[in-house]
């Protein structure tokens, strides 16, 4: 009994952490600069495909992850520079434009990489034993990386000069720009950082799934709910709490019902939370 409870808890924790990693790019782009990035799913997919392409061409695992993330970061830079930067004042237009990016990116992915299922070999196929539990080694490592990424993000945001600039921009854009902040540049840095993180997540998650051109969509809506339920701008605690509500609790619901029903319940729960706490569970009332 205890062992099965422990294994459910471990499962929920790992799912929460993987979702938090997938949502981290969105927590940056949407949570900080308010861009409703519907292209987030396509960025994850692109990261996964770049990862597949490089590992199948003999690039070792760790450099491949970093290169895939950088590649998606560069695509994000291009997207921001050509389209998004002209529309920061119009959130609704950026929502549509990022969806346009999703449409185009998905088709380009299909043209370049094909539509077949692709698999990235798991670099750590073993399991590790911990307190009587058998945990998949790679998934656990990704969970740890996820925590690390969120900690680093929070550290950058609250302990560095770049972080002060970003927070100034989030708090009051006009005053920040009057005080000499290059608002356009900070927007660009934040957007590219978010794209980089999405690429990183896509690359790291790719060995856990079969990759197809719509793989990112699985994470798109969940990531949005994770970020909004947790709280906009609450990079560390918000993303973790939100990911638990959207991802981890699904594991618990799935114990008493089917997987699909559990997901429906979780989505409904997220919608209810969105209505009653629009600034998120951790967020302050603004």
């Amino acid at each position, binding site marked *: 009994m205890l062992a099965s409870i422990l294994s459910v808890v471990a499962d929920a924790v790992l799912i929460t952490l993987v979702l938090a990693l997938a949502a981290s790019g969105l927590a940056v782009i949407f949570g900080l600069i308010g861009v409703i990035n519907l292209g987030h799913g396509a960025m994850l997919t692109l990261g996964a495909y770049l990862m597949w392409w490089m590992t199948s061409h003999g690039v070792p695992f760790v450099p491949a992850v970093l290169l895939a993330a950088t590649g998606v970061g560069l695509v994000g830079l291009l997207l921001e520079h050509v389209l998004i930067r002209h529309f920061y004042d119009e959130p609704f*237009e950026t929502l549509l*434009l990022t*969806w346009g990016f999703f449409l185009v990116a998905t088709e380009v992915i299909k*043209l370049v990489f094909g539509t077949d299922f692709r698999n990235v070999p798991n670099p750590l196929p073993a399991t590790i034993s911990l307190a009587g539990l058998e945990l998949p080694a790679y998934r656990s490592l990704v969970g740890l990386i996820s925590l690390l990424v969120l900690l680093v993000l929070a550290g950058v945001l609250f302990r560095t000069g770049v972080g002060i600039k970003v927070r100034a921009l989030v708090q009051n854009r006009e005053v920040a720009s009057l005080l000499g902040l290059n608002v356009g540049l900070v927007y660009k840095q934040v957007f590219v950082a978010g794209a980089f993180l999405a690429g990183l997540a896509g690359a790291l998650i790719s060995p856990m799934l079969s990759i197809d051109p719509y793989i990112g969509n699985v994470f798109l809506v969940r990531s949005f709910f994770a970020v909004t339920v947790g709280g906009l701008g609450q990079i560390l605690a918000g993303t973790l709490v939100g990911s638990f509500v959207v991802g981890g609790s699904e594991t618990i619901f799935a114990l008493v019902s089917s997987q699909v029903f559990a997901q429906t319940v979780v*989505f409904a729960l997220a*919608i209810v939370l*969105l209505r009653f706490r*629009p600034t998120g569970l951790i967020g302050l009332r603004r």
Partner: protein
Amino acid sequence: MSAAGDLALGGTADRSARTGLGELLLAVLVFAALAALPQLIEGYVVYILPQYMLFGVMAMSLGLLWGSCGVLSFGQAGFFALGGYAIGLVMGREGLPVNPAYLGILCAALACAALAAAIGYFLFSAGVRDSYFVLVTLALSIMVEQIAVSQSEITGGWNGMFINRMSLTFPGFELQLTEDAPIYYLVLAVAALVYLGLRLLQRVRFGKILVGIRENEPRMEALGYAAPLYKTAAFALSGAIAGLAGALYATHAGFVAPSLGGVLFSTEVVVWVAVAGRQSLLAAFLGGVLVSSLSNYLSAVAPSLWQLFMGLLFIVAITVLRGGVAGFLARVVDRRSAVR
């Protein structure tokens, strides 16, 4: 927004009445051409076109919501599929006292209206942002697809649900719609009625209030209009129309599958309406019909290039055309008449 400026200037009322008349004239031409088509050609086109017209009706349901009221839904296909399943369930029952298709269509429209009203009021009454509404409707279409897949003993799961062609019954006689031409005219009549009904709605007080909310919601609230109620009503009506279209689609195609309610189809509708022009119902209808016909034709020739082209056109429609093809054409016409 330039539309706000137009509304504020008194002198443009005359012009908008003129373009309104122009659009009505164009609509008469379009529907007359569609009515003449089965007389000129037969075969596959006459078979398939009603399905595209129903996609056009779904596009109009979004046109009402997005164009008039400024609320974007990424979940219209969810209602479309729900309508299809609703008519399928009703028509599958034995021993109904009335024509099961009539009852099915009514149930489809009512179920979708009720669902939309419940979701709409729940969110609008809390003043949820429009962008959050997009996310919720996106989740809605995912949920519809997933429920359709998982409740396989009711919906048939991945295999979908088979539905008979409906028949029209009147007191005294019955008209089977198994041939292509009769159901073509039924669908055309429904499309034309929905178009006219929505046009009328835009002209009356209700439509004006919706536009007022789109342009300045706080001001309408201050003037004493309960914006959440009006937005809810618009969403419920829009859901009902999408459900009606879905029910007719199901009985025409004879089949509904979960993917009909999915995210990809839902957002395709958004692309049609954005590219064609969200301010005009006729443009939304034509966008639905033309883009889905072209998709069908070109996806046989060059599938991925076509999708890529639509994606790029979508971006161009938002950044450059601003208001889609119809908005662009209207501005060109305006500029010409202004020069003259």
